[in-house]
C-alpha cells in the first residue's frame, strides 16, 4: 500500500522574475521587530538563509550570532546564525536561521530546524505546494 500523507494547506507557486517558484510568504520575527518576505523553499539548502540587512531591523546584532561558512554553488558565503521565529501560513515556528554577511539576491527556506517541524509536499506539474504545520 502506498503511504498517504495529509496536508492542511495548499499554496500556489509564485511568479518571480524568471519563472514560477515554490515561494512562501514568511514573517520574520525578531526580538524588536518583524517583516514579511518571500523566500523560496529549497529542500537542498541546510539553513533558512536571509539577507543580513534584515537582522538589525528585527532587533538582532548580526555579528553577535554564531559565525558559519556556508558552501553554495557559487562558492563560499559567510553567515551568522540566529534564533528567530518564522510565521508561515498562520503558524509560528522557532528556528535557527542564517543571515548573510553580504547582500544576497534570493532568500531561502532550508532544512535546519524548520523542515523538521513541518510537512511540505510539491506537485510541480501543477505548480502547487502543500503544507502542514506539524511533522
Amino acid at each position: 500500500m502506498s503511504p498517504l500523507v495529509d496536508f492542511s494547506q495548499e499554496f500556489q507557486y509564485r511568479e518571480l522574475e524568471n519563472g514560477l517558484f515554490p515561494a512562501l510568504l514568511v514573517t520574520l520575527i525578531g526580538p524588536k521587530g518583524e517583516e514579511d518576505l518571500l523566500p523560496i523553499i529549497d529542500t537542498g539548502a541546510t539553513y533558512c538563509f536571509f539577507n543580513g540587512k534584515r537582522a538589525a531591523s528585527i532587533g538582532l546584532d548580526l555579528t553577535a550570532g554564531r559565525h558559519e561558512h556556508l558552501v553554495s554553488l557559487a562558492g563560499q558565503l559567510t553567515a551568522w546564525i540566529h534564533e528567530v521565529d518564522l510565521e508561515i501560513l498562520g503558524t509560528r515556528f522557532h528556528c535557527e536561521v542564517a543571515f548573510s554577511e553580504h547582500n544576497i539576491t534570493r532568500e531561502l527556506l532550508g532544512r535546519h530546524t524548520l523542515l523538521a517541524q513541518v510537512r511540505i509536499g510539491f506537485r510541480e506539474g501543477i505548480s502547487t505546494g502543500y503544507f502542514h504545520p506539524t511533522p
Partner: protein
Amino acid sequence: MATAPVGIAPVLTPYTLGALADTCEQDHLPEQALFLRRLLPFVEDIVQKCFVPLLSQPREGSFFGRFDKLSKDFEPFRLYLNTRLFNIFVTKEDVLSFYEQVLLDLLNPLMRTAREMDMGPELISAIVRDYIKIVRALFQAAGGTTIQNDELTVEQLTKLVDWFHAATRFDYALTSVFLVLEKLIPAPAANDKSALLSACKQALFDFGQAMSRMVAHESLSRALSDLETPHIKIKVERNGIQPGATPPVGQARPELGLDPSHRQMEMSWLARHKDLADFYGGQWIVLEKDELVANDTDYEKARHIATQKGIKRPFIIFVPFKENGAFMGI
C-alpha cells in the same frame, strides 16, 4: 443510465490521446492503447473542422459567436468520441483516477508553454483542478458513471440535455486551450487569449451548475463552493493575460485551504508586474496592499520610507537584476 459519455469532458487532443495511449501501454492495456492510437486521425480531423476556425484568419463574426457555433458543431463528434472512449474503458477500475493522473501529468509541460505564451498558467491549472474536483464529486454522488434512474421524466431529460450542452461547451473550451498550448491551432492575439480563457472559465461554472441541477448531492455542492477558478480574475496586459489571484475576503477556510496569506493584494501586484526587474532590478521594494510604497537600492532607506508611513511590518523584498539562466540556489 450511463452519463459519463454525455456529462464529462475528457479533452481529447492528439497530445492527450498519445499520452493516454502511452499510459495504457505502461499499464499493460494494449487493446486500449491500440484503440486510442486508431482514434488519432479522427481527432486530427475534428481539430481541423471544429477548432482551427476558432482562431485562424480570416474570421467570421465575434469570438463568442464563433465559439458558440463551433462548440455546437463539435457536439455530435464529441458524443461519438466519448461513447467509444468510455466503452473501451468500461472494465477498467477507477478510470477516473487513471484519467486524472494522465491529465495532471500533461499539465507540467503545457504550463511551461502557457507561461511562454502569456496564457495564464495559474488560471488554466486551476480550471483543470476544479474540473477534476467537480467530476470526482459527481462520481462520489452517483457512485460511478451511472445515474441510478433509467426512467427519466421530461424535466429530468431536459436537465440532462442542458448538462450535455454545458459539458460540450466546457470540453470545447478546455480542448481549445490545450490545442493552443500544443500549438495545433493558431496562437491567439491578446484579446482572444482573454476571451478564450473567459469562455473556459464561464463554461466550467455552467458545467458545474448544470451537473448540480441533475445530481443534487452534498459532495457536489461542496465541490462547487470550493472552486479556485472564480477567485482568479483575468486582466489583459500588453500581449498577454495576467490572471490575478483574488480570494474572497472573509471566506471560511476549506479543509484543504488555499494560502490564507494576508498579503494577497501584494501577491497580485507581484503577479501583475512580471517586468519588475526592468524597472526595479537591484532595488529593495516595499509593497503595501496594492501599492508600491518604497523602492531603493539601499535596504535601510526603503524600509525607513515604509515605517515613516506607519507600516510596522513591511513586506520588503529584493528584486534581482534580470537573469537569463535558471535559478540553481544561492
